[in-house]
């Protein structure tokens, strides 16, 4: 496709603007999202004690206990199988007032606090909402749309030189060229990954709002009603009004496994279930699970009383709606495949964070006044915002991980304490960048982040006794990986801090990143 020079300029301008509007939020989303890939290991790591995986019998006892104690759970109840969300089974249901209640095999009485360590949930919240309540998710949906526009416009700008420059990385006098090459190479080489996130991110954040807008326009107002049926596995059956006992969990699981096997899916492993109208003759249970060599094995709906199959949406035979959902979720969350897939997602996520960081650097660089030390106001503001938000969120997440180990020892409320640690440290970093020159703030905050991140495995060792070598020797690869990952990231932050300091001393003087730059 050949673009006219004026059109090309418009795309360049559009790319800068959407980058400006969405770049910082995208950095947070990608950095926190890369860490969220390891949500399960992180939950283990942040829990004060190591629990072995529970059994199906424990899960059955939890189910019986919850149903006996909580009439509201009969209407609708969800459960995770042992080893999916955490080592033991969990149950959750809305009480009479609509408040979610949670129970685990260790704490079978319902309470409104989510089970498990809150650290991974907080990082996840940063990922999908920047930690902002309610509006944050919609904001991130709009950010996803802007991200899509940035991808298309960026690709179009770069298209004429795409093939020639793909593997070009030109270090040397022209620093802007070097950053531009790095930005382009990462953008193009990880384009499929980014396309997936722009599409699924927008879907996850905005689907309800968009369906409400599209329904009356193109679907005669029937869209929302149809979407429920498109997502559920079995049609909702009304209560029969006749009492009937539930079949045991083991019967449901056996039925799910044998049905999956008949459809060519071996080793179906249940992950979570949804049970409605428990105790009624028309009780229905939906079991979702995974299996090796599938993107997401799928869901089966069973008659919870007799254990017979009502309907299934398994890979290979499921309809277009369920296939779309399964693929979109699997591709976004990266929970198919083995650890290699997760590490790939982690690295591509960090690469994405670099893409947005380097985009901001390029924006500043292209506005640099080369012949005078005092830089423009917009460059200084942008440099400060980039340092404060991007390096600040790295420092904040590491601080939160530190708090996750320290707070339980002090007997404080871990959930509230972690929130304070996260947002207060982030705010302090932002404040610090307002007080210092961008070059100094970047160097200092990078050293700070390196130090805090290096303390994370230390705090874990002191607080729980699970030092890296002990975790590794005992075969707890998850724990050792989190600690080693923190050390590796601390080393990266230290290298970045040294590079920033070198740039300030030896790089071109007239820049926001130079030592003498006036504030």
């Amino acid at each position, binding site marked *: 496709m050949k673009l006219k020079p004026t*059109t090309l300029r*418009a*795309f360049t*301008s*559009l790319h800068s603007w959407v980058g400006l509007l969405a770049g910082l939020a995208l950095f947070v989303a990608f950095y926190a999202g890369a860490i969220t890939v390891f949500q399960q290991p992180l939950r283990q790591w942040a829990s004060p004690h190591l629990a072995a995986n529970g059994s199906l019998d424990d899960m059955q006892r939890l189910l019986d206990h919850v149903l006996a104690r909580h009439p509201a759970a009969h209407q609708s109840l969800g459960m995770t199988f042992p080893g999916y969300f955490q080592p033991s089974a969990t149950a959750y249901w809305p009480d009479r007032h609509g408040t979610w209640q949670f129970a685990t095999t260790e704490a079978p009485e319902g309470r409104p606090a989510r089970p498990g360590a809150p650290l991974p949930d907080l990082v996840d919240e940063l990922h999908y909402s920047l930690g902002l309540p309610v509006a944050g998710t919609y904001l991130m949906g709009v950010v*996803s*749309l802007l991200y*899509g*526009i940035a991808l*298309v*416009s960026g690709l*179009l700008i770069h298209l004429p030189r795409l093939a020639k420059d793909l593997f070009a990385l030109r270090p040397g006098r022209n620093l802007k060229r070097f950053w531009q090459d790095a930005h382009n190479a990462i953008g193009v080489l990880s384009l499929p990954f980014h396309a997936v996130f*722009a*599409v*699924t991110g*927008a*879907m996850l954040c*905005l*689907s309800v709002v*968009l*369906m409400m*807008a*599209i329904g009356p*326009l*193109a*679907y*005669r107002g029937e*869209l929302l009603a*149809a*979407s429920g*049926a*498109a*997502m559920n596995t079995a049609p909702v059956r009304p209560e029969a009004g006749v009492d009937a006992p539930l079949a045991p969990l083991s019967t449901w699981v056996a039925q799910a496994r044998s049905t999956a096997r008949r459809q060519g899916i071996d080793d179906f492993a249940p992950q979570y279930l949804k049970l409605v109208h428990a105790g009624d003759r028309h009780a229905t249970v939906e079991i979702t699970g995974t299996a090796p060599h599938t993107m997401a094995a799928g869901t089966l709906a069973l008659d919870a009383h007799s254990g017979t199959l009502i309907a299934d949406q398994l890979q290979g035979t499921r*309809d*277009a*709606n*369920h296939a*779309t*959902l399964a693929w*979109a979720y699997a591709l976004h969350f990266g929970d198919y495949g083995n650890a290699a897939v997760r590490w790939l997602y982690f690295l591509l996520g960090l690469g994405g964070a670099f893409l947005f960081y380097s985009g901001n650097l390029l924006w500043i660089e292209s506005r640099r006044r080369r012949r005078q030390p005092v830089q423009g106001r917009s460059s200084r503001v942008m440099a400060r915002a980039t340092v404060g938000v991007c390096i600040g969120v790295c420092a904040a997440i590491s601080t939160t991980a530190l708090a996750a180990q320290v707070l339980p020892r002090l007997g404080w409320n871990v959930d509230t304490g972690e929130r304070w640690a996260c947002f207060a440290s982030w705010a302090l970093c932002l404040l610090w960048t307002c007080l210092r020159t961008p070059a100094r703030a970047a160097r200092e905050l990078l050293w700070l982040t390196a130090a805090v991140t290096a303390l994370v495995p230390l705090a874990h060792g002191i607080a729980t006794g699970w030092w890296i070598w002990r975790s590794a020797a005992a075969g707890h690869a998850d724990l050792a990986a989190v600690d080693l990952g923190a050390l590796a990231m601390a080393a990266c932050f230290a290298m970045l801090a040294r590079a920033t300091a070198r740039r300030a001393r030896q790089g071109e003087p007239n820049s926001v990143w130079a030592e003498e730059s006036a504030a």
Partner: protein
Amino acid sequence: MWARVSAGAIPGFFLSVAAIGLIDWLLPGPWQAALLPCMLAFCPLWVGVICASLKFADGKRAWLWLSAAAIVGLGLLRALQALHWVR
């Protein structure tokens, strides 16, 4: 640039709705069968329309053409639905 981008965002939104609606209702089988793939395709399509709107010579033309296309598209969809020619 902003005049063209806003044309892509506002009338472009309605044009994208019309296109997704037409695709979903014209595909073989009831529209419910392809609902979620079409919903998933909506955002990339809208983003594509916003970017393509920069190909117009100026904002006025972009607004006119995209609005006209959206009205025709939605009108056609409504007519097909009312006549029960699609399902």
